């Protein structure tokens, strides 16, 4: 398909703005751009068709099931987007006088209260724009906490080998050294391995529970207690909270800090990669280190709440401008309100039921990395098929595309060979789960009968497998006009 630049015709345009009603101001010549500005020149009808064509070449949750492990691609309710588009939210300047933004602040304060209760935390900031940003924010708080106590020798963050890559990357950004620990056979934290690395240098542990193999760690209380005894803090990576929200709380598991991915657990759309939101919750003893600004509520003389902003006493500083991805927070709050206590719990229970139902349907066809029961996801390993038939996780994933299903997460977690991580979520119906099971069974049957069809997959999409090696070796990262002949 052509790029907008290739459809551009000099002089074509869409007239959007009125003629000037004030004298034209001329900047001095040395303050004027001389470089050409070759943006596309197109009329509105063609722009509209251009994007319609691009939309058809995209695949969202609305187009089909999306069992992308650890990404929680649940349905994104339309009402949330619609309410977040109210002009009473979108037309509000972030630096308006505080008494003119009471609705925005109230939404933030109420969302904080709701999500803090769900996670078992006391305070929560919505500043972080994504999960990784939340990790970084929380680790700055861990650092600030130890420094504040004069405990500056605590330089190590412990991360299991099944963790997301963001964990060690965030630790490095906050000035920590990462200590990796292996998982045990059941996919949980290896207690002896943990004990071996705990000590006076331990600043904290970052843990995803349930972990990326879909297992709720049965030793969770012992793990967090061991870290506390060593003087470290426990950090909960909320990537997989969808399995346990309303059923168990990180705060009760012994965690001191948590980040959530509102774009996973709380249904805000992924938008092709963002905007997300990665709020950080903490126990009361860490609240003085939160980033600024923190929205707060005060009871006025008339008994009504008045909302304000506050800078925590020993704040780690600011992690981005203004108040985070506010509209995303709003959508997540709308979702939380709609579900309420019972709905949140029902969502988690159904997500877990759906995952186990799918795992059971596939058990006789594929190897699953660890025995169940699973939480919200499970991990297939294609390694035996690779050894016997040369079929890889990639081949299976590409064949799934031909069935109108988005593939599971490939090659993650790293501690499973040829991994395919499946997370159906609670918003898929039984027929859809059956359809996915049937699709994967049919693909399995072709591993012996017609492996070539898997290696050539996908054959029904607008392109076949792209040449990624050439893309990385000879990067073309923007359009350039062809040289005139």
């Amino acid at each position, binding site marked *: 398909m052509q*790029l907008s630049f290739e459809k551009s015709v000099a002089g074509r345009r869409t007239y959007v703005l009125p003629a000037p009603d004030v004298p034209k101001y001329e900047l001095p010549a040395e303050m004027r751009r001389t470089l050409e500005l070759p943006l596309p020149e197109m009329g509105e009808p063609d*722009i509209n068709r251009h*994007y319609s064509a691009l939309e058809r070449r995209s695949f969202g949750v609305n187009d089909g099931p999306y069992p992308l492990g650890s990404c929680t691609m649940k349905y994104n309710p339309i009402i949330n987007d619609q309410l977040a588009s109210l002009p009473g939210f979108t037309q509000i*300047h972030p630096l308006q006088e505080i008494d003119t933004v009471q609705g925005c602040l109230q939404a933030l304060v109420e969302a904080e209260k709701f999500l803090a209760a769900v996670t078992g935390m006391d305070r929560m900031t919505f500043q972080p724009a994504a999960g990784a940003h939340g990790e970084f924010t929380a680790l*700055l708080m861990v650092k600030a906490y130890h420094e504040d106590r004069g405990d500056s020798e605590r330089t190590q963050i412990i991360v299991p080998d099944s963790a997301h890559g963001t964990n060690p990357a965030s630790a490095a950004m906050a000035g920590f050294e990462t200590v990796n620990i292996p998982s045990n056979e059941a996919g949980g934290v290896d207690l002896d391995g943990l004990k071996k690395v705990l000590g006076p240098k331990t600043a904290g542990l970052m843990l995803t529970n349930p972990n990326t193999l879909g297992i709720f760690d049965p030793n969770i209380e012992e793990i967090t207690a061991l870290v506390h005894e060593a003087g470290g803090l426990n950090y909960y990576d909320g990537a997989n909270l969808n399995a346990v929200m309303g059923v168990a709380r990180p705060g009760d598991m012994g965690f001191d800090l948590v980040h959530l991915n509102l774009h996973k657990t709380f249904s805000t759309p992924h938008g092709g990669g963002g905007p997300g939101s990665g709020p950080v919750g903490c126990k009361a003893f860490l609240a003085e280190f939160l980033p600024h600004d923190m929205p707060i509520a005060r009871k006025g003389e008339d008994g009504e709440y008045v909302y304000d902003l506050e800078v925590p006493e020993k704040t780690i500083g600011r992690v981005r401008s203004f108040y985070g991805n506010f509209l995303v927070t709003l959508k997540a709050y709308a979702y939380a309100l709609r579900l309420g206590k*019972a709905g949140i719990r029902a969502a988690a229970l159904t997500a877990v039921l759906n995952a186990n139902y799918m795992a059971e349907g596939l058990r006789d066809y594929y190897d699953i990395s660890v025995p169940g029961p699973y939480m919200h996801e499970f991990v297939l390993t294609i390694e035996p098929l690779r050894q016997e038939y040369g079929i890889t996780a990639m081949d299976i994933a590409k064949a799934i595309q031909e069935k109108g299903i988005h593939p599971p997460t490939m090659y993650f977690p790293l501690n499973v060979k040829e991994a395919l991580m499946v997370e159906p979520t609670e918003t898929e119906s039984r027929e859809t789960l059956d359809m996915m099971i049937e699709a994967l069974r049919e693909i399995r049957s072709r591993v012996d009968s017609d492996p070539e069809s898997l290696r050539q997959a996908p054959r029904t999409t607008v392109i076949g497998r792209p040449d990624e090696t050439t893309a990385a070796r000879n990067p073309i990262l923007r359009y350039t006009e062809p040289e005139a002949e």
Partner: protein
Amino acid sequence: MCAYLPSTEAERRAMLEALGKESALDFFSSVPAEQLAAAERVDLPEGMSELELSRKLNGLAAKNRQFAKIYRGYGAYNHYIPAMVDEIATRQAFVTTYTPYQAELSQGVLQTIFEYQTMICQLTGLDVSNASVYDGATAAAEAVNMCLERRRRHVLLSEGLHPQTIETVKSRFQYLNVEVTLIPLAESGETSVEALAELLDETVCGVLVAQPNVLGIIEPAAELFALAKKAGAKSVLSINPIAAAILPAAAEVGVDIAVGEGQPLGMPLSFGGPGLGFMAARQDMMRRLPGRIVGQTTDAEGRRAFVLTLQAREQHIRRERAMSNICSNQALCALRAGVYLTVMGPQGLREVAELSLSKAHYLAARLAELPGWSLRFDGEFFHEFVTDAPISGEKINAVLREHDILGGYPLADGGMVWCCTETVTREDMDELVNILREVG
């Protein structure tokens, strides 16, 4: 009861039965019983119908004050958003799709990002762009990270950067053995060339300047960056993307990296987010760019194909040695920016810039005529300027509110930063001046 669950109670029971379980709670045998009990005791409201939810959020929106006319900028700008932007950016396949790791299913999204990257390169005149980061402040922090070298760990930030950008950079590097020093502004409101010359030495890795700066002044960027280059430091310019249509392009003033807040490109004010952090750099810094990047390649049949590329820089491959921890970015906002720039085109974007520039100069001249009022700086400005007046900024804004006008941003020192965009008319500005004349 739970909204958005398609399966019925009976279906779920049948599925449980098929798995030999009585309740979904049976899957939670690893969770200690007292934890399950504690979660059940949590005090949370019951769910709402869609109608009740709509009522509740409309109520919250109504508690905010929306102004008919906005003269406040200072990091968030009220530009007109063409109808096409909202229409296209709310199409469901764009809204509900994941990061395009599965290229075959995601050519559309990948192409929108590739087009966005190209347009950011065109605006800045630079060679490579990434697929976006969180906002302008974090983009500046990422740029600092790109400049750091083992022996050069001192970064100079112009005081003309937005204060929140400065704060964000400081928190980002507080534990990484990086020294951050501010370059003061001269009386003209420009970053002081003399002060920069004095601060530069062989420890400085990067110099960051905003164009225009937070007080609206157009910076002598070429002069500042010539000094930086001579001292072996990288040059980073934080640009307003609308101003970029008419001010010298980043590449024309010798920058290595250009960053900025993309909110003016088709994103509403939204109480400050989501916006868009854009980043572009010279070719030689390509592999130091953080975050996702889309590249062009082909499939086996030779068809043009787009993919996420250069992933060896990223956290999921490199873990603790990654350039940055970023994965989620602001893709849908980048799509908005792409649609905005395509609808406006080069001519339209220049018009937005020219109108903002001319209106700001019209208002500045009219305000300066008021008794006791003056413009604080003589330097050239884009669409923001600072006034000093005989009455306080708070007082001015209190009066303007009565007329449904959001006045300028009051500085702590009593000055006021005004902003004009194409959204205000001459009539509006005359009305504003008349109101202020009567306040005295």
